[in-house]
């Protein structure tokens, strides 16, 4: 069973429907016990970092997420979920985040009038290093993004994929041991996005 963590950061229907489509059982939950007993954890989310962190604290979910990660469960971050696993975000006047991966989250700065913020739409992901969850997917495939802030891990070794926007080549896929986190939405990225979810649902959490 996969636990999809519900911390009131956006609508989780599309994530749930994507797993339904590939025939994988999942449980949308805010219950720390259900997260603890799940085989795998999906940590999605849209919205703002400040509110997301407040919700996670108030709902008592910070420890569940940390222990899910430290017990070696396959862990998938998506969009805002990917941002708040870093240490700090510039959003909402500066927000302390969970700190599962060293690094920060910065706001895009539009270099000109035709460069729109948010970064919304399909953009290419260049695979920097192979990963079991990316198996069967070509390098430079396009995925669906919607975000105004981007993750900046402190060490290149955490970067699995990169994407170029607003004059920066940001980390669009981050990996650390049993954690994989995408800035894009695999659940909204058509057949190849579903392939990522399918690979994740079979991944044992090892990268070697």
């Amino acid at each position: 069973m996969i636990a999809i963590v519900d911390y009131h950061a956006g609508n989780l229907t599309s994530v749930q429907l994507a797993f339904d489509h590939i025939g994988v059982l999942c449980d949308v939950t805010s219950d720390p016990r259900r997260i603890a007993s799940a085989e795998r954890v999906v940590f999605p989310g849209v919205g703002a970092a400040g509110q997301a962190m407040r919700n996670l604290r108030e709902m008592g979910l910070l420890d569940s997420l940390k222990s899910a990660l430290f017990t070696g469960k396959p862990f998938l971050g998506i969009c805002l979920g990917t941002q708040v696993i870093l240490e700090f975000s510039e959003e909402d006047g500066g927000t302390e985040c969970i700190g599962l991966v060293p690094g920060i989250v910065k706001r895009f700065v539009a270099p000109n009038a035709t460069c729109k913020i948010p970064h919304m739409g399909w953009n290419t992901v260049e695979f920097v290093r192979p990963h079991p969850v990316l198996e069967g997917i070509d390098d430079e495939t396009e995925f669906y993004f919607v975000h105004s802030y981007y993750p900046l891990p402190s060490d290149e070794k955490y970067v699995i994929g990169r994407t170029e926007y607003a004059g920066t080549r940001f980390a669009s896929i981050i990996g650390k041991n049993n954690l994989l986190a995408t800035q894009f939405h695999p659940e909204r990225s058509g057949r190849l996005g579903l392939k990522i979810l399918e690979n994740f649902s079979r991944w044992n959490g090892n990268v070697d």
Partner: protein
Amino acid sequence: MEMLTKRIIPCLDVRNRKVTKGVRFQGNVDLGDPIEMAVAYSEGGCDELVFYDITASAEYRPIDIEMVREVARVIHIPFAVGGGIRSLDDMYQVLLAGAEKVSVNSLAVKNPSIIAEGAKVFGSQCIVLGMDPVKTDDPRFPSGYEITIRGFRERTGIDALEWAKRAQDLGVGEIVVNSVDADGTRQGYEINLTRTISTSVHIPVVASGGGGTPVHLAEVFTEGCADAAIIASMIHTSEYTIAQIKEELAKAGVPVRKKW
């Protein structure tokens, strides 16, 4: 160089669970089943879809939520839904059913606070402003376009560019600029209108109305500075496939999604 691709968005106008298409909002003919067409276009490589329940508003009934649920079950790319949205709860129902975005048009003109509230509660990225500007020589409209509502039936006295900027300030995440003059004509998008709005706001602008050939799309993406474009007749009639359109765009140097 990699870059954000231009989105091609088929528009499905739905009436009584059938996709329909008219010219300047009139003379509609039925084209097919919305669920089947959504699957075909998604598998054919479109980047997003938009559904308008075109009679919900006039019939004072809520949007067809069951249809939204069915669409969300069968396609896994973003889609927007509009028509018949009257309240925050209507927006919530559409998003909860699995739509990525909800599109408001007439409602936003009558009650602009609804877009501010929707953006605050659900996030800007969920709230799309649809606008139907019509050309005018009246000097009261500096952009040369006046906003109409209720499918061109009612003029509002609001300038198109002013409305776009105001909507951005209120928190909408994207603007669909549907030219009333070009709608259904297949003679090309309104390039000036699209460019004027797209270069004056910092949120994505979707061109709509008038697309008939891949050349029209290339024009609106380059000269018109559109971030995305809506197509309807040109694929509903099977005159073009999405793959053909994208191939032509790529040849013209427009970045498009190639793998699906």
